[in-house]
């Protein structure tokens, strides 16, 4: 536990993982998932997922297409609710509170757990309106000046302020792909969430924009808990402290990124990482 307060996860020794399946069990978990099954109609997409996501760390979810990593991510802020045929069972706790219980309103949950999507999806409104939208609907800002502050702060944190400060009233859709994605991150940050979920945030971006986003993710780790789905092994290795490998709806292995990428316990993880399948 002392390790947590130092808040330098890279220097931490790998959490001892006796087996692959229960490897998610950590003490300082922000999200604690136990036995999560997800069904799309008759088709089961996730099988008994046990996974913990630690606070102020970047957890990478990797695995071949269709393995359920995005589905899992979307369980964490209940975005799956929007799909009629999607059924989630098991327990997912955020700070010890079941997010699927009636006690927690989904709007409240999503205010705490922000999301950045695969394709940059700014609103077709001005840059300012994009960032201020979240604080506005939640009534976070007390007045115009505070709202301005939040917008500026969020854009600074997202590393976009210098590029857009003179044209806040221009449409967000007019920015480049990488800028749009950073705008979406700024928009998520503006709500002051505790967790940011990122669903392949760089898959639509060029390498330079990707590098910027990765840098940004590393900076954001200081204030936010981040879970990122990625198809790029290098990206997972670069930005994350812990990695979970999904395969066919199961979590095969969870552990410190270093360990997963150097000496995975499971053969399937080894095969996937070395590019033998997926």
């Amino acid at each position, binding site marked *: 536990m002392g390790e947590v307060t130092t808040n330098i996860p890279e220097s931490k020794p790998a959490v001892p993982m006796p087996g692959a399946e229960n490897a998610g069990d950590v003490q300082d978990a922000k999200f604690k998932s136990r036995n999560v099954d997800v069904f799309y109609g008759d088709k089961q997409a996730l099988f008994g997922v046990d996974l913990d996501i630690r606070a102020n760390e970047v957890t990478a979810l990797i695995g071949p297409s269709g393995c359920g990593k995005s589905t899992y991510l979307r369980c964490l*802020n209940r*975005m799956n609710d*929007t799909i*009629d045929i999607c059924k989630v069972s098991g327990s997912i706790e955020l700070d010890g509170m079941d997010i699927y219980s009636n006690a927690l309103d989904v*709007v*409240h*949950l*999503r*205010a705490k757990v*922000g*999301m950045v*999507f695969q*394709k940059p*999806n*700014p*609103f*077709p409104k001005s840059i300012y309106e994009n960032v201020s*939208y*979240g604080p506005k*609907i*939640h009534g976070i800002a007390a007045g115009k000046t505070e709202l301005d502050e939040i917008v500026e702060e969020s854009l600074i944190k997202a590393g976009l302020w210098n590029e857009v400060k003179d044209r806040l009233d221009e449409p967000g*859709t007019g920015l480049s792909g990488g800028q749009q994605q950073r705008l*979406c991150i700024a*928009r*998520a940050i503006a*709500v002051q969430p505790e967790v940011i979920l990122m669903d392949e945030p760089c898959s639509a971006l060029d390498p330079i924009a990707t590098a910027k986003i990765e840098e940004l993710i590393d900076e954001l780790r200081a204030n936010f808990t981040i879970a990122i789905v990625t198809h790029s092994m290098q990206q997972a290795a670069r930005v994350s402290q812990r990695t979970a490998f999904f395969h066919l709806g199961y979590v095969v292995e969870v552990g410190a990124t270093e360990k997963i990428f150097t000496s995975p316990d499971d053969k399937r993880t080894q095969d996937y990482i070395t590019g033998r399948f997926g």
Partner: protein
Amino acid sequence: MTDIVMDSSSQPTNHNQDRATRASEAVKRGLKKRYAAEKRFKAYGIGAIAIAMGFIAILFGTIISNGLPAFSETVIKLEVNVSEEIIDPTQERDPAVIRAANYRKVIFDDFRALFPEVTARRDKRDLTKILSSGTTFELQRLVTEDPSLIGKTIILEVPVAADFDLYNKGVISRDVGEDDRRLKDKQLDWFDTLVEKGMIDTRFNTTFFTNADSRDPELSGILGAAAGTFFTMLVTLMLSFPIAVAAAVYLEEFAPKNKLTQIIEVNINNLAAVPSIVFGLLGLAMFITFFGLPRSAPLVGGMVLALMTMPTIIIASRAALKAVPPSIREAALGLGASKMQVVGQHVLPLAMPGILTGTIIGMAQALGETAPLLMIGMVAFIVDVPGSITDPATVLPVQVFLWADSPERAFVARTSAAIMVLLGFLVFMNALAVLLRKKFERRW
């Protein structure tokens, strides 16, 4: 055995080469045919468009050539001595007396004085037929409004009777035998005399735009029908737009996808295909007979047309809502917006151009609708311009129908002119739809 093996190993190469050459030749041979087919297809397309354009040209050509004469009217400048003896013999200037005075005599006396040679009773009557019945009303109006005119000589500029208007425009010709036309030779001579005296003039037909319907073609206009159309469309828009958009938003965004909503969907789509006269019957049975709403009123007409327009708007709105990319919804939901906020603040504004286009197209449909309005009595002959949604009224297409049905020849031009006005409205609304779509179209 060995021979066969040898053969089979060398043959495939030859065979493949052969096939390649043959294939390329076949392609060459086929090319000409393919290009010919393409040319033919293009020619069919151009032909189809040419035919369509030709018919449109004929349609517009006929309507415009028929309707243009209605935009000018023949007027007579009549010098009238507003005799005090006839109008107000008591000299008390009592409004009731002034209003009830014999203006006809004043006008006829002065007009007949222009033709002293006409003495026979019958001829005198034929002579005054040059004047429209509106002449007396016009003088009555002027004098009632301004009694100081009594005793003075004023110049009235009023339309001539419709048949003489047609003669002046060349529609009725002297070449036709006297028995085959409505005007006698004598009447034509008198009219020609008036023309020589410079009392006849042709001017832009303002009467057509300021009057409601009338039995006298020269006094009839489209203002009544236009006002009726305005009130009817107002009711239609006020009812159909909010209800249809609400229905579309609910069905598209909130309703669970189950059997019941499917049935509702199918029924809405079917409703769009129901013959419009059926809606008229429904309006008659429900709104007039059951609810006791006034007959011939824009209120009921608007309600019936709203029923008819709603499916169109619902279908267009749902398509527009569907076209909003899911990524926008996800973005807003991901920020913690409630369903209502997502729809109200993001989806609906983005779908608005499509919804407005659908609404305008629906309204344009309603604008041209005649059949259901016949059923609820909006086909009545109404001389007053309606002032509210409960006044008896008629609408432009019904006015076209009424005039087309009238025996007077002068209504032919007015029918076409009314069609032109109606088409003008339609073109305007469609242009508005295009403009709105262009203006609010946003890319994401």
